[in-house]
């Protein structure tokens, strides 16, 4: 991981853009892990079809994740000969191989480590300026003292020298920094920042992979900006603490992953019924049950959309890229507060735990803005029927606004009621406030034109975008629709977006085609369609989409 981080940071220093995802085994510490990088002269939001260079520090447990390291015949595999022959699943790719005596080289340097030798060799091979690498290491290791820094510097240089004797591999072009400010951020950090920018002041949560970094980033950031984060005893507590914090007047958020979301669903219904705004960031991992905690999937869609008991209209949004985790989470804060309802943000491990070097994100205007009841409360009714369906919320401390928030069906005043007319009226209210709201153009990212459309969402939007670019280069015209707003559905906007489209491809990372079924339930789709779907953890690659698109050429 350190090696990957150094290379990504160095690429950024040298003016490139980049993306790094990670593949982690089940071990708590150590064990197999791979840092998967793509470096480019322009902003990217997807991994490529294969890797040009694989530096193997060892072959431990390679069978478990070789499938996540696709190589081509042109790729180069560097490995220390003392680790033995190239294991079968890697050899099967038919890539070129070369020996790099990582251990021996490291041994010539006091305190020298193989990973830094590998960094030096990789940087030299791909044409990443050594200066940039050394600068990054100098900043990163400043705290660790002179000796460590000297050892690392020497190891990197030795690796770079050794690269001269190695076969050539794909190289980065000469490239000057364009001077534009850029950020190095993970999806989980971006979600945390989106929450903060949106105005979140209270967070309660229970740790779970791969969502914990959202919380770990938020804890100090909130504390420094007058907010509070509490570690709850479980997800039942965290969602209810968040409901309490929000009822008390603070924009509130929790973050979790599938198992935690499952525990929270009863209380999400309470937030719907009591019209208590909150944001829930769900960083999806492989399911069901404990599933594959460290790896990505989009399979919480069903529970997020349909998991609440009763008719419980709520908001579900999904970021379309790592950087968009910022925008979408910030938007979710705005929506939850404006609509007084829970807003779920469906991120995933592939976005959450990946880092990107990207242009500095544009600020978005969205802020928590709750309609609150302030004066003239003599006849205050918390759940008053209004044109928008949103009724002013009295915040504790406001004289005359006392009411009892309730998950029991209630009348306009909030008094429990099992009367048919109250149930109908309050159900209409809770549904209408969502369906009549103007979500603007953010409901989806739509690009391109033509009579073919690819509909996708979340992390799969990246490879789809890249596939469409390549198809365009081959003369095809294709439209991309990446949904950001999943609930409520926007049938009119979708009809507009699909105008003139005859064929669609749907791409998603689930086994059961959850997204496809969701689309079919909510939208009129052209009959001619193809679905590209697969469960995690193997990400859908651009060429898989491309080959399906080219069949329509």
């Amino acid at each position, binding site marked *: 991981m350190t090696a990957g981080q150094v290379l990504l940071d160095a690429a950024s220093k040298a003016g490139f853009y980049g993306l790094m995802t990670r593949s982690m085994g089940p071990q708590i510490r150590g064990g197999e892990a791979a840092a998967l990088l793509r470096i480019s002269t322009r902003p990217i939001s997807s991994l490529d079809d294969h890797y040009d260079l694989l530096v193997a520090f060892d072959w431990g447990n390679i069978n478990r994740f070789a499938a996540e390291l696709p190589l081509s015949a042109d790729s180069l595999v560097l490995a220390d000969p003392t680790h033995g022959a190239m294991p079968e699943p890697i050899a099967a790719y038919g890539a070129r191989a070369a020996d790099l005596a990582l251990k021996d080289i490291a041994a010539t340097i006091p305190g020298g480590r193989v990973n830094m030798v590998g960094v030096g060799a990789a940087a030299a091979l791909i044409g990443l300026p050594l200066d940039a690498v050394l600068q990054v290491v100098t900043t990163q290791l400043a705290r660790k003292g002179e000796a460590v820094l000297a050892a690392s510097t020497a190891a990197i240089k030795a690796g770079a020298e050794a690269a001269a004797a190695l076969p050539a591999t794909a190289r980065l072009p000469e490239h000057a920094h364009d001077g534009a400010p850029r950020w190095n951020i993970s999806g989980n950090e971006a979600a945390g920042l989106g929450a903060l920018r949106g105005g979140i002041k209270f967070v*309660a949560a229970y740790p779970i992979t791969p969502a914990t970094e959202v919380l770990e980033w938020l804890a100090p950031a909130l*504390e420094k900006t007058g907010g509070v984060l509490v570690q709850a005893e479980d997800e*039942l507590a965290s969602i209810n603490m968040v409901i309490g914090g*929000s009822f008390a007047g603070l924009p509130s958020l929790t973050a979790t992953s599938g198992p935690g979301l499952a525990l929270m669903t009863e209380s999400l219904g309470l937030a719907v019924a*009591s019209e208590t705004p909150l944001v829930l960031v769900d960083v999806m991992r492989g399911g069901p049950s404990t599933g594959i905690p460290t790896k990505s999937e989009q399979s919480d869609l069903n529970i997020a959309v349909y998991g609440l008991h009763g008719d419980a209209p709520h908001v579900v949004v999904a970021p379309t890229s790592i950087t968009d985790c910022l925008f979408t989470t910030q938007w979710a804060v705005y929506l939850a507060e404006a609509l007084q309802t829970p807003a779920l943000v469906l991120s995933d491990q592939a976005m959450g735990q990946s880092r990107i070097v990207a242009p500095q994100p544009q600020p978005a205007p969205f802020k928590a803005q709750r309609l609150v009841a302030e004066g003239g409360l003599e006849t205050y009714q918390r759940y008053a029927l209004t044109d928008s369906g949103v009724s002013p919320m009295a915040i504790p401390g406001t004289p005359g606004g006392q009411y*009892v928030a309730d998950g029991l069906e209630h009348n306009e005043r909030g008094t429990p009621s099992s009367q048919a007319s109250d149930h109908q009226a309050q159900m209409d209210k809770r549904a209408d406030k969502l369906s009549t709201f103007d979500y603007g153009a953010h409901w989806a990212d739509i690009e391109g034109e033509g009579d073919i459309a690819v509909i996708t969402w979340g992390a799969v939007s990246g490879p789809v975008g890249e596939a469409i670019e390549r198809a365009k280069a081959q003369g095809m015209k294709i439209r991309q629709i990446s949904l950001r707003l999943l609930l409520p559905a926007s049938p009119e906007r979708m009809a507009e977006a699909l105008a003139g489209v005859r064929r669609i491809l749907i791409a998603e990372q689930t086994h059961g085609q959850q997204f496809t079924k969701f689309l079919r339930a909510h939208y009129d789709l052209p009959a001619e369609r193809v679905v590209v779907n697969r469960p995690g953890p193997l990400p859908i690659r651009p060429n898989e989409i491309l080959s399906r698109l080219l069949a329509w050429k």
Partner: protein
Amino acid sequence: MTVQTSLTAQDFKSDVKPIWCPGCGDYAVLSAVTKAMAELGRPREDIAFISGIGCSSRIPAYTNVYGFHGVHGRALAIAAGVKLARPDLTVIAAGGDGDGLSIGGNHFMHACRRNVDMTYIVMDNQVYGMTKGQASPTTAPDWCNSKLTPEGTGISPVEPARLALASGANFIARGFAGNPNEVARLIVEGIHHPGFSFIHVLSPCVTYRPEQREWKNVVHPGEGDPSKAIAEAMQRLSTDDGYTTGVLFAGTRPAFMPARHEKASMAEIEGKFLS
């Protein structure tokens, strides 16, 4: 703190008619709670009253403060959220023995140890009233009047005050619905005591446990000094018959409240991402 007001217990009652059976102990708890609220001298809007689900949990709707009637078992979590978000409010949570000790048992333990400055009233009738008379965690093992457990549960009950002490509650008291003035006094004392205060109220269910009408003959005031060390309280509660009323333990742990600072601008925080 807002200025002293001169509201009466009646001012803290709402006009919503309770769903409780005639004679239910919860009426007296309602009187005690509203009396305690009046004695606090705080305006109605500065009090938040949070509950779960059950007959007893209906109580916030019958008061005139800000309330939350949540889902079964989670009153303490909502209440902690309210207090952590808004330390300026007086936060009271209430509910039944099933709500607080069965489905919400985990939150009870953690509320005791977290020690957020709030007060929790458990209206214990040793039965699930709302669902029409099943055994709760405080029901005796040989109680056979539920169709669900016709032979009794065979499981020994939990004694709420002992559980609270073991879990680290900072203030523990027991009252009896038949003596609402004492209950009111205990609630006020609990609210004034820093940290988490637990008020265990024996509140008869006249419908499913009519024999609890006899409680008036078995409750008795406690002996011993509640402010003594925890070891003494452990000793005392380990032999307690469960009907002792009064303050059972008053600890000295400071209340939990995370610090808040405004020491960084968004620009500083976001600057870390510049690369």
